[in-house]
Each structure stands twice: as structure tokens, then as C-alpha cells.
């Protein structure tokens, strides 16, 4: 059977979620693999959220927030950026491909960019194939 990646996208309420919404209201077509989770700010996305997404079977995780300087809580996206780099180093050590986790800034007007991001990310993950994490953890007694 053809592999259809499951992707979890954490979107900040003020920019990225609105951007994704715009892609919808403008009736743009993009890959249906993404499940969006709306959070108030990208600074709310704790490392646990990302790890849990992978543990529960996500093949890729997308994290989106407002562009630098635009966060509605001032510093949230910088916090997110630093967590992201730490997580990247950590998941690599654990044997998860770094490409499976991606951070992008999407503004409220960037519906098109969001659709393109989803398409390109879906393609990357499809090429990588399924993430083994969930299965490996379940097999551990």
C-alpha cells in the first residue's frame, strides 16, 4: 500500500493558523496529510508536545509561528526557535532523522506559503518513509 505520512502541525493562533485558514478560504489545494493543532503561541509548544506526537505515530512534525519580531507575546517564537534547535540535536541522537521536524514562520497573509510548505514537507516525509519510533517503543516490553 502506498505510504501516506501522518504529519502533525502545531500552529500559533495569531499568524500561522490564520495563514493556514487563509489557504483554506482561498480554496488552495494542498496535501491532506497534515493534522493541525492550534496553540496560542509557538512559545507554548513544549518539547514534550513534539516528542509525544512522534511517540503516537507522527511521521513528521511541523512547527509554525509568527515571523521573528511579530510574535503577539513578543518573545514566544524565539523561545520556540531555541527549543527547536535543542530538539533537533536530541532527536538526531535518538536516531530520528532531523528532516522529520521542521520549523517555519508563516504569517496570517501567507496562505500560499503554508500550502507550499505542507506540500514540500509531505514530499520530504514521503521520501523518508514511515517513522519507526512508535513501533519500536511499542515493541519494548
Amino acid at each position, binding site marked *: 500500500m502506498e505510504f501516506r505520512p501522518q504529519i502533525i502541525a502545531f500552529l500559533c493562533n495569531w499568524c500561522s493558523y490564520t495563514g493556514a485558514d487563509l489557504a483554506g478560504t482561498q480554496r488552495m489545494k494542498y496535501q491532506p496529510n497534515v493534522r493541525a493543532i492550534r496553540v496560542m503561541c509557538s512559545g507554548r509548544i513544549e*518539547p*514534550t508536545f513534539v*516528542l509525544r506526537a512522534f511517540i503516537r505515530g507522527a511521521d513528521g512534525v511541523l512547527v509554525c509561528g509568527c515571523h521573528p519580531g511579530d510574535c503577539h507575546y513578543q518573545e514566544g517564537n524565539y*523561545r520556540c*526557535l*531555541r527549543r527547536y534547535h535543542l530538539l533537533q*540535536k*536530541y532527536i538526531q541522537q*535518538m536516531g530520528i532523522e532531523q528532516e522529520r521536524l521542521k520549523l517555519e514562520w508563516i504569517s496570517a497573509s501567507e496562505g500560499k506559503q503554508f500550502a507550499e510548505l505542507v506540500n514540500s514537507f509531505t514530499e520530504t516525509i514521503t521520501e523518508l518513509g514511515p517513522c519507526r519510533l512508535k513501533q519500536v517503543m511499542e515493541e*519494548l516490553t
Partner: protein
Amino acid sequence: MNEQKPKLKLAVYWGAACGGCCVSVLDVHEKLFDVVAAADLVFWPVALDTKYQDVEEMHDGFIDLTLFNGAVRNSENEHIAKLLRKKSKILVAYGSCSHLGGIPGMANFFTKEEIFRRVYEESESTINPEKIKPQPEYKVTEGTLEIPVFYNDVRPLDKVVDVDYYLPGCPPQTERLVEVFMAIVTGAQLPPKGSVVGAGSKAQCEECTRTKTDNKLIKKFKRPWEIYDDGVTCFMEQGVICMGPATRSGCGHRCIKGNAPCRGCYGPTADVTDTGAKIMSAIASIIDSKEPAEIEAIIEDIVDPAGTFYRFSLPSAMIRRRL
């Protein structure tokens, strides 16, 4: 009538452990008399000659309290864990290895094959041209020899059997053990099953006496030997990674008093599932940069983040082994 309380039956066992936990039990020093007055030690491989068979012959629930230290790494550890569960009324995961996987749990960064290759082929002091590896069974003329099966994964005790309480620490503070023990002896109200006992519930930082300012932002991570520690300022503020923000209090911050940063042996606080994820959050909030390249460079200075953040808790973390 002079009613004498029957003595408690106490057992101590080590799985994959360094022996430090057993020493921490011995460290009760003269309090040992109080312990012996209240309890009979029925099984303790490090100190007594009770055989496994003697334990097998005990009736179920015979032992009142078992302190199980060490992780479960091989079939022998697993067998005894299950046996002691059956024979004990209260089973305590004693020490970091039993509680979270501990230092032996870092073996989950490797597979069994990698470990065997390193130990029996590549290590500097090994000469083994025939590449002989341990076999769980070996036939000799006299019969079959058996040794325990080495598992691919290290597990904390509660991944193998039902655990009543957790007493954290590497090793636990002996004073805490005595308190817990005395609570059981005097029949004090015991906490609900599954509780962490002999420790606090807050984070280490809240008890730490080092000076903290509001402005802890750092440009560079350093290893402890790279700083002139003033003995006063919070380690994090000096750029040294300290597991304090993600670690349960209760140890009396012994390491910090000894001018070493917290390494996290007491495990996560009550409201945290994953120590490493928590410390990643804490560290992200003190890095003084907004530029991706600079952030990456700063993080580059953290040698072995996974090993540092999950030093004691890898087998009980969300991601319990390297893929």
C-alpha cells in the same frame, strides 16, 4: 499481657546496580540497631548468604518490605524482580536505577550487539581473536552451563512488575530511608500506592541556596572545569548545565553543596513526565540569542545533550531507547 509486635521481614536486592544503593542501606550506621530491633533481614545478597531457593520457598507475601535497587538488564534481574514481587507485601523501587533506569539505562543508547562488540572485541584491553561472546547456554561434558540472558534493553523496575513506592536517588539519602522505614514500622499512614517517598515534590532550584537573578541569559555553555566557580552563583547563570530546574528535590542538594551541578538523579518532579523535555525548555529560555546560526553554535557546546538530559532516566523517558 506483654504484647510484642512481630518483627518486620525486610529484604534488599540489587539488579543492574553499582552497589552504591546497598552501601546507602549500610550507611544507617548505628541506626542499624533500631532497624534490626524492628526487622529481620531475610534476604540481602550483598550481606547475607540467603539463597534464591530460600526465597522461592517463602510463602507469598512473606516479606513485609523489599527494597529493590538496580535496573532490570538481564533474565536473572527479571526473575528475581518477579519472585520478590510475589513474596513481598510492599515492593519499593529503591534508587535511580530501579526508579528510572539510572546510569545502566544509558546502555539504551546502544544495542546489545554494539555493547558486546565493544566489550568483547574492540575494547583496548581485550584480546579475543576468535570473537568469543557470552552464550546463555554452553554444553560441557558434565552437562549444560547457564548464565543469565543479557537483554537488548534496560528497564526500570515498574516496567517489569507492579511497584508500590519509589525512593529516588543515586543513591538515596540514608536519612530518607530511615524515615520511610520508621513510618512503616510504626504503622503510620502510608502514602497512596505509586507515590514517590523520601523526596520532595518541588524542583531542586526551589531549595537550592545558590544566588539566582532574574536575568539569567547566557551566550556560552561551559563544562564545570571551564569556569571559576564562585561557589555562590547559580550554575546555570554561570553557563554550566544544571539539572536542578527539572529535578525533584529531597536530596539536600548534596552535589550543589559540593560545588557540582545537579545531575538529576532524583528524577522528574511530580508534574513532569519527561526530565529531558523539561530541561530542554529551561535551557531554551536562557540562551541569549535570536539568530538561528548563533543559537546552533551555542547549543553545539552542549556535549552529548541526550546523555546529559537523560543521564538517569533514559529507560523511563518518552523515547526509551535510541532507534
